[in-house]
């Protein structure tokens, strides 16, 4: 009797999960359909001509590039060197050393001949104590600030306090920007006459690429399956998800790796929240909130061009740490802004975006976990009807593998960044395997992340860096 009751309950759950996965798949496809016309329309646009005039235009807004760094000794010099060669008329680079325990500061001092300067900083926000400020003797527009450890959000707030320009870009210290990244990202802001208050660009994974002198020379696939799967995951997230959301002004994430913001708006909403690990998403939600509260027409936009390259975790351990941090950040943001959920005052963001991020991005881990559990019970132990487990299996493949392989095609159709034919079938075949190993793996990490969200321990969550620039390695 008891067993029959458990089986019935499991089968009911199985059907709920099947319907949920089908619903989410349709949602993804809808986002894909929304994203497609813009991608298709802009596919053949001459991007170089588009930004050509901006490099000499005095009205291209000056930007402060903020680089929060915590124990980034491996890649900080290469990252800063890359930032110093950006194609942009007027900008400053501000590295904020958040109390690193390694040689981040010493390497910066040595590489760029940093000299102490007196501070006269505005205090838009309260932060941990700033202990020193430096300016490079070689590059006038490079600064470094030393501060007590307070987390990434706190470091960014210090950078905003110190910055002198009306717009700022936040960039992770382990990322490399394309030479025209700032031009491409600021363009929607200039074209909209300031109506666009923040922009994010597509972030790509640099693992496997040949990078020399802080520039991506050859785009190629990495060898490790774990890294290849993350490339596919990024395609799915950026090309299908974010573009669709941006088109409808519902974008809730501007990647922490790279985004451009109107400083005035960020100051008005109180800056980054240093208590959360998902400070990038939390800020965007607060910006949306303030836009709606003020009944402003401003918006957040996402540009589809790949503008930023970042190092993805290459070990299970670092991937796990990253996913736990992401999941925690998402959970904390959703919880903090639960008042916006289904609130008509916040229009599309409250009625669709936030519920989407809650029930799809955050809680899908539970549904997927249950799905795998049911498949095992049905197909391996024959505990529940194999037919139900079979349907579940088919839907999981559709949900995890076929959507990812579709995003591989979308990438090829739009940017085709990989300059050889063989990359395409490799990516495609790896995408098909997603449901069988990578998905269960990340689902388990996300479940752990959900639990850890309750613990509320703050940390930078840095992974072990190998450094993506190969110049030094080659020299050795």
């Amino acid at each position, binding site marked *: 009797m008891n067993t029959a009751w458990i089986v019935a309950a499991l089968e009911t759950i199985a059907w709920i999960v099947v319907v949920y996965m089908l619903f989410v798949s349709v949602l993804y496809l809808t986002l894909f359909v929304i994203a497609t016309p813009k991608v298709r329309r802009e596919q053949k646009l001459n991007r170089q001509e588009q930004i050509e005039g901006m490099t000499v235009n005095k009205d291209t807004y000056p930007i402060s590039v903020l680089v929060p760094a915590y124990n980034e000794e491996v890649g900080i010099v290469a990252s800063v060197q890359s930032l110093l060669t950006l194609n942009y008329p007027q900008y400053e680079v501000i590295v904020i050393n958040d109390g690193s325990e390694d040689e981040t500061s010493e390497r910066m001092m040595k590489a760029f001949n940093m000299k102490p300067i007196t501070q006269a900083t505005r205090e838009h926000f309260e932060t941990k104590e700033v202990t020193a400020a430096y300016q490079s003797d070689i590059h006038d527009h490079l600064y470094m600030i030393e501060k007590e450890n307070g987390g990434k959000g706190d470091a960014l707030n210090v950078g905003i306090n110190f910055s002198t320009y009306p717009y700022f870009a936040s960039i992770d210290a382990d990322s490399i920007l394309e030479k025209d990244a700032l031009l491409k990202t600021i363009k929607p802001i200039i074209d909209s006459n*300031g109506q666009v208050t923040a922009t994010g660009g597509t972030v790509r994974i640099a693992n496997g690429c040949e990078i020399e002198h802080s520039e991506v020379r050859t785009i190629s696939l990495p060898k490790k399956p774990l890294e290849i799967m993350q490339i596919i995951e990024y395609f799915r997230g950026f090309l299908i998800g974010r573009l669709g959301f941006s088109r409808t002004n519902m974008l809730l994430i501007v990647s922490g790796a790279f985004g451009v913001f109107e400083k005035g708006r960020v100051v008005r909403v109180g800056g980054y929240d240093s208590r959360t690990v998902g400070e990038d998403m939390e800020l965007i939600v607060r910006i949306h909130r303030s836009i709606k509260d003020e009944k402003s027409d401003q918006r957040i936009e996402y540009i589809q061009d790949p503008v930023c390259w970042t190092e993805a975790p290459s070990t299970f351990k670092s991937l796990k740490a990253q996913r736990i941090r992401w999941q925690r950040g998402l959970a904390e943001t959703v919880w903090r802004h639960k008042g916006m959920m289904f609130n008509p005052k916040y229009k599309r963001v409250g009625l669709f975006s936030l519920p989407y991020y809650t029930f799809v991005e955050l809680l899908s881990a539970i549904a997927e976990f249950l799905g795998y559990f049911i498949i095992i019970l049905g197909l391996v132990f024959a505990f529940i009807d194999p037919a139900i487990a079979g349907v579940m299996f*088919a839907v999981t493949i559709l949900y995890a593998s076929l959507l990812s392989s579709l995003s591989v095609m979308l990438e090829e*159709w739009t940017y085709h960044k990989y300059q050889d034919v063989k990359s*395409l079938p490799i990516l495609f075949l790896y995408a098909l395997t997603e449901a069988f190993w990578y998905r269960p793996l990340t689902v388990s990490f996300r479940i752990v992340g959900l639990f850890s969200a309750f613990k509320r321990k703050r940390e930078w969550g840095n992974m072990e860096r190998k450094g993506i620039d190969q110049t030094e390695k080659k020299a050795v």
Partner: protein
Amino acid sequence: MVTVALWIIAGLLIIQLLLLGIMMIKKHRELQTIIRLKDLDAKLTTEFEAFIQGESPRHPRFPEKKELKVQLMEAILERNLEGADDLQAARIRQLAEASLSDEYRRRLQRGAWAKRINALYFIEDFKMFNLMDEVYTVTEESQKNQDEEFRQGLRAMAALQDRRVFELVEEHVALPVSLLKEIFQRLNIKAANYWFARFETHEDVPEHLLSAFISHCGDVKSSTYHSLVEKCLGDSRDEIRIKALKALSGYGEVVNKSLIVPFIQSEHWEERLMVAKLIGNANLNEFQKQMKTMMSDREWWVRFAAANALRKLDGGEALLRKMAESDKDPYAKDMAGRTLTTKWGLTS
């Protein structure tokens, strides 16, 4: 049910595999084209340089295939346009008009959105005056969308000195100042004079256009309109006055200095900021005392600009040093310190 589900999955997989096959073939062809383009580009560039420098009487023979020809011509002609003297530029433009006009006309009339914009970019670069009407038509039609096509259409019209551009920009008050400035940058002085003569006084000029125009005058240090910019300091519109102060900073010169005095104690901090910048850029040493006072302004930006201005004035550095050591106002003291320890000119 399992069978149905599996069939659906299998069907989707087969469709994707077919798409993959098609994409691989397409990619292979595209990569081949890229290699071909690279080879042809290298070969034709050498021949073209000889032609443009007058060493060869004829331009090289570009491939017959239209797409290939257009791509190569655009790349080679554009590259050679950079650094070309007047005669060479004229030859390049003549060749562009003779070889690319038909294709660009077709693209503007029947091409997709991206193709039309790309055509507009090159029409502007090659100054293809023979396509002026087509450019106007496509720009006028795109004004309802206010997108990149409209913006680039306006730029191209200005580059071709098509004065109908004024009608379009006067209609759209929400156009960004930066775009309007780009338009003024492309127009010659005759066109600007023609436009400005349509208004009795500067007060009659729509705010968005006057802001952009005086700002442009400051950028290019237009002597013709210097007095107009100074007159704008007395304009009733806040934005115009701020833009006039900023433009005069660009000139680095003020003829009637009494006009700027009221701004030193303006209730708008933006005006105080701009006048401090102007005093520094124009080296108006007689305002040193006022700059010292402004170092204690309640607004950080004004203190910042005043400190940078002081640094540019005679004896300013010594004064800043004294302030950094012993000024009673801690804000002024900090700002003096910051200005002295940061590198010259960078943050001004």
